[in-house]
């Protein structure tokens, strides 16, 4: 379920697409918004018109919103809390002599 979730499903609107834009070569595509379109081709054309009028992108992905599965906010603690207590996964956890170099 995406940001729009199952709520977006209705007969009269065209399907909803999520739009991802790569700002420059070498960067990830990033989510920047969503739009309705009859098909993926039209979604791409519209994404170009709406989200890249000022040189914001060099590549566009469009994904049907109902194909995105998302974690449930209610599961947030269960899913992410375990990572918070494992501070030894970070380099700053370790005690090293002050004058050690290149580490």
């Amino acid at each position, binding site marked *: 379920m995406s*940001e*729009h979730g199952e*709520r977006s499903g209705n007969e009269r609107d065209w399907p909803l697409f999520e739009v991802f834009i790569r700002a420059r070569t070498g960067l990830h595509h990033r989510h920047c918004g*969503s739009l309705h379109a009859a*098909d993926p081709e*039209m979604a791409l054309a519209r994404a170009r018109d709406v989200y890249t009028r000022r040189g914001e992108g060099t590549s566009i992905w469009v994904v049907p919103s109902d194909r995105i599965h998302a974690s449930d*906010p209610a599961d947030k603690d269960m899913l992410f809390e375990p990572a918070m207590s494992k501070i030894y996964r970070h380099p700053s956890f370790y005690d090293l002599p002050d004058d050690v170099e290149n580490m």
Partner: protein
Amino acid sequence: MYTQGLNQAVEDSGPEDAELLARFQAKIDREEKIEPNDWMPEAYRQTLIRQISQHAHSEIVGMLPEGNWLTRAPSLRRKAILLAKVQDEGGHGLYLYAAAETLGISRAEMVDRLLEGRARYSSIFNYPTITWADIGAVGWLVDGAAIMNQIPLCRCSYGPYARAMIRICKEESFHQRQGYEAISRLAKGTAAQKRMAQDALDRWWWPSLMMFGPSDADSPHTGRSMRWKIKRFTNDELRQKFVDATVPQARLIGLEPPDPELRYDEESGHWHFGEIDWTEFNEVLAGNGPCNRERMAARRKAHADGAWVREAATAHARKKQSRMAMAAAAE
């Protein structure tokens, strides 16, 4: 503002879980964003649906007064600028409709509400653009007032709305400048051009101040919206900021706002201005402004005229899909 009709109460839908409510408010107090799948009070959801959709409708209807001058702009430069601005406003409408959709209302439903006269848009777009100077005044004053309102909305507690506003504010920054540039050019032109610029200011000044909505004394729900951090400043605070910023801009180009009471108050550091004609404001909101009927007729016509395009695109998409399915089955 673009959402100035917000002063009717949203019905409270019975008691809600006190613990959920407390957790929700605590999250807002910590300046954390509320996201679409998070729990929220029904009144918060309904207030936002109404505010964001009114804002979206305003962007769309707001294209009409400027569209009026697209084919008659005085130079190719001005025409290209105006076209880019109007195109931006269409995009703003889309970002905002998409943000409202995350709250569980469909685009089709929002469009129906507008076309059937059940939803409001900003009163400002019910005034006519009768001269080229009006296009300068719209960019300078109307977009200027909109920016005043939209900058604090970038910090709104509802994530999708805040993110849409950040995008919009980035794009807005040229709208006000191009308008001020256009009207400055007239103000420095021939005597007739200067008169035209002053006349545009005379007609747009008060309606622009009305954009911020009723005075705080007549906005009973401001407190709740502030507590929910949907609103960060009251209507009167934003209006005062706008007047303080705009009066010096007018005088700098030799124009004067049409208000005999206007004077700088040394003590408060603010410009004092006269009483707004709230009867006019209420009349425009009630549908009796100079262009209300024309604007709605234009929107309905555009929607009806576009029906065949929407149908053709749907049919084309279906045909392509079934062709692909057939090709896949033949493999």
